[in-house]
């Protein structure tokens, strides 16, 4: 793993070095007094032996979390990991967002501070434990020195060190002494055996739960600074559009409007508050010149081109045996196409960012999945050095990938507005409307999957060829390190590692650059590949007269690396009463998929009356390795299924002349309360290393539901969303 640096986050570093943890842990003491010196360390009120933990003399333990809290529960889960290894008292523990600093870099993402692909727990589980173990060792050493006993003779429990004779020193009391010690090397640390865990594996309430039910202002949009002005932008309808004309003076005369400025993304109206800015924006009457905007395609045109591309092989992602030969000579060859449209992330909190310049740099407040880039982009746009940019990560009112844009679009735009209105000397809050968000032009890639399989007389596949066409969010972006040999790993995930036993296999991908701009959306390319594969395998099962669960079981069996996948398939089928007879018009469908190490199977049960589909129940069995917070995992699975059902039933951004037709929740509907099925979650107990959970239950829901519709009606839908097929849900 890459050493991401041994910088100190406090300006006043006393010690340096990446002694502990796989990610180089920042080592340094954060002094509460300005101008503190090494000698004054003994009087300090807090002890921060690592980037990840701060302990104060009053005994408060703060977990300092690099990944963003966007609802997935990472603050609570990582704080639990820290508290357990530290033997802290849970009631003393809080969590806070870290600054943007390489110490919090994600080694799976090139050391960037990014909250992506459900990697936070897998990446930081070990480092958090090492940080806690080091802090605990220092506290124990400090206590042992006071008592004149060996550290090994002491024990820790509930936020205190105990001597062999039962004397007790609380962690807070030990902070001044512990601060003078050096963290032990990683090799000297003894981590708990899982049998000693007392917090990990228990369901803990989320730390910020109370703030979220009392309306505390914790989101980016809630940021309020003295003299702050609010901006909103009349944005270009398509990339490359130019301003032809607009009524600047009319907008300027609108009450509360302070400035109207052209910026690269459009025309910004800056006003005393959001409503005034919006009123001003409506008076702009902008006319756009689209002559330089290049091809303005419709979704249908993009799809037709995708279909043409799929006729020839793309960049090779996986190849074994002789798939072409086998497909050419086989008697029974099936070919199907599965299409997923562009969809918008549509987090409930519209995009926003606040930037303030100060004599010594600038401050940026926002909910973000990508602090490293925000910092870089703000620095570049405002012409300040990156080490003078302070990113204040707020709680995210949802994100699902949108606040991790590879060009930090919202930060860039806000900084550009600020640069254009510097004379006003005011902090600028930039607020997008819902329409701006839905039309914001960064969507889950449209994807066309062409699948071919030859089957033997037993109905099982002898060759499998999967061609994917989807624009890559990674090529030519900050995430280009995820592209190898022309293949974006996130576009082919789930397809190139097909778990089913097929002797001859090819998986290839075309990644054209036309059509809408794209960005990862919760569960990345797996939403597409899982829909295609789990629909196609279902078709093959029915074609050969096989039970869909039994068919998958046979195709997974016999390969020991499929053991966990098989187990979730069995558990989901069992919990959903697979095989029990259902009345006419009802059906069950199954899907099984491995999302970047987390294995899950889902069974959907639906009722179809005419064209009306009602999803009654979705059962999910899931194995994400060691479970840190069981109730948190269940909540993620419930939420992932509901998120995926919105896409399966309704989600589509359709392009017309290059721009999105949809604009708000009336024409871009989401699943509502009354259409929500019963959801049952089976968690598999596991001692395997923890894998991610934020996205892992997303890919299965669409194919499970569509397979259930087939089981109920004989009607096979190969395109999302369902309502496009003339059905209602």
């Amino acid at each position, binding site marked *: 793993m890459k050493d991401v640096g041994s910088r100190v986050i406090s300006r006043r570093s006393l010690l340096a070095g990446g002694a502990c943890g796989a990610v180089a842990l920042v080592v340094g003491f954060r002094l509460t007094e300005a101008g503190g010196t090494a000698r004054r360390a003994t009087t300090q009120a807090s002890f921060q032996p690592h980037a990840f933990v701060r302990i104060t003399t009053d005994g408060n333990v703060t977990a300092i979390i690099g990944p963003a809290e966007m*609802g997935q529960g990472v603050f609570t889960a990582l704080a639990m990991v820290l508290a357990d290894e530290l033997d802290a008292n849970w009631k003393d523990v809080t969590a806070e967002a870290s600054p943007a600093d390489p110490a919090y870099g994600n080694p799976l993402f090139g050391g960037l501070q990014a909250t992506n692909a459900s990697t936070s727990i897998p990446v930081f589980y070990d480092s958090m434990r090492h940080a806690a173990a080091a802090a605990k060792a220092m506290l124990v050493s400090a206590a042992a020195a006071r008592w004149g006993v060996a550290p090994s003779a002491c024990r820790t429990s509930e936020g205190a060190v105990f001597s062999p004779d039962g004397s007790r020193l609380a962690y807070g009391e030990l902070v001044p002494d512990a601060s003078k010690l050096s963290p032990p090397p990683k090799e000297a640390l003894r981590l708990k055996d899982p049998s000693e865990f007392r917090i990990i594996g228990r369901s803990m309430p989320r730390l910020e739960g*109370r703030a979220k039910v*009392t309306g505390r*202002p914790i989101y980016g949009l809630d940021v309020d600074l003295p003299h702050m002005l609010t901006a909103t932008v009349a944005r270009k309808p398509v990339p490359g559009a130019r301003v032809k004309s607009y009524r600047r003076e009319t907008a300027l005369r609108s009450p509360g409007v302070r400035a109207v400025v052209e910026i690269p993304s459009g025309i910004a109206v800056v006003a005393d508050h*959001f409503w005034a800015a919006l009123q001003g924006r409506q008076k702009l009457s902008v006319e756009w010149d689209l002559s330089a905007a290049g091809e303005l395609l419709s979704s249908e045109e993009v799809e037709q081109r995708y279909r043409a591309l799929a006729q020839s092989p793309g960049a090779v992602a996986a190849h074994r045996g002789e798939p072409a030969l086998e497909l050419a000579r086989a008697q029974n060859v099936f070919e199907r196409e599965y299409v997923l449209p562009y969809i918008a992330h549509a987090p409930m*909190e519209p995009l926003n960012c606040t930037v303030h310049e100060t004599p010594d740099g600038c401050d940026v407040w926002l909910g973000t999945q990508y602090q490293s880039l925000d910092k870089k982009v703000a620095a570049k746009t405002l012409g300040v050095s990156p080490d003078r940019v302070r990113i204040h990560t707020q709680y995210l009112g949802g994100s699902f990938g949108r606040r991790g844009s590879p060009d930090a679009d919202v930060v860039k735009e806000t900084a550009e507005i600020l640069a254009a209105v510097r004379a006003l000397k005011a902090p600028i809050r930039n607020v997008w409307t819902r329409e701006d968000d839905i039309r914001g032009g960064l969507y889950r890639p449209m994807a066309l999957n062409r699948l071919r399989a030859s089957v033997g007389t037993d109905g099982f596949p002898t060759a499998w060829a999967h061609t994917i066409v989807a624009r890559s969010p990674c090529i030519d972006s900050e995430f280009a390190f995820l592209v190898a040999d022309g293949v974006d790993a996130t576009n082919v995930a789930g397809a190139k590692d097909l778990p089913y036993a097929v002797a001859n296999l090819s998986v290839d991908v075309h990644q054209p650059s036309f059509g809408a701009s794209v960005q990862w959306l919760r569960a990345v390319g797996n939403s597409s590949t899982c829909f295609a594969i789990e629909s196609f395998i279902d078709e093959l099962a029915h074609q050969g007269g096989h039970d869909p669960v039994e068919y998958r079981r046979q195709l997974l069996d016999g390969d020991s690396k499929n053991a966990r996948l098989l187990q979730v398939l069995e558990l989901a089928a069992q919990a959903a009463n697979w095989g029990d007879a259902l009345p006419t018009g009802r059906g069950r469908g199954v899907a099984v998929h491995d999302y970047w190490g987390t294995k899950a199977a889902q069974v959907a049960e639906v009722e179809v009356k005419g064209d009306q589909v009602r999803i009654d129940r979705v059962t999910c069995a899931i194995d994400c390795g060691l479970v840190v917070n069981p109730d948190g995992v269940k909540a993620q699975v419930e939420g992932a299924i509901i998120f995926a059902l919105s896409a399966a039933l309704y989600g589509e951004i359709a392009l017309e002349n290059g721009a999105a037709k949809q604009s708000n*929740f009336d024409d871009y509907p989401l699943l509502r309360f009354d259409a929500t099925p019963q959801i049952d979650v089976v968690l598999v107990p596991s001692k395997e290393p923890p894998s991610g959970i934020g996205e892992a239950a997303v890919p299965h829901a669409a194919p499970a539901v569509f397979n259930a519709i087939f089981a109920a009606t004989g009607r096979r839908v190969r395109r999302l969303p369902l309502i496009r097929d003339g059905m209602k849900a």
Partner: protein
Amino acid sequence: MGSDKKLTINGREHVVPAPDGMPLLWVLRDLLKLRGTKFGCGKALCGACTVHLDGVAVRSCVLPVERAVGKSVRTIEGLGDERLHPLQDAWLDHQVSQCGYCQSGQLMAAASLLERNPNPTSAEIDAEMSGILCRCGTYPRIRAAILSVAEKMMRAAGADAS
């Protein structure tokens, strides 16, 4: 234009210079700095901005401020007092919130429902709560939380009666 509006919010009187037509949401958020009420769509489609107007749940993003004058406005900041509202407690018991952004609206809608109808049927809960979108998918827990409070209220009412 910027005429002063007298508003009663969470039992307190405020005089605020707000133009006619400005939605109550932005008066609350930007002028009175009560930022618990959320902006989600601006068109009464998502319900994140739900507040009570004389006890009835309304979408503040499309309610012109002048229509709130002379009425009692209650926001998430006024849902509980020193203690949490029973629904807020139930929200914590059931760990409803994920990102949390829509939860002010969810709670205000649920509170309005139970105040009018302490023993709602499943269909009545559907009717009230389907107006509030949650992108994180917390609906099953919202239902469980509302039912638990309704059950407690009915039990308490039963105990009073006996």
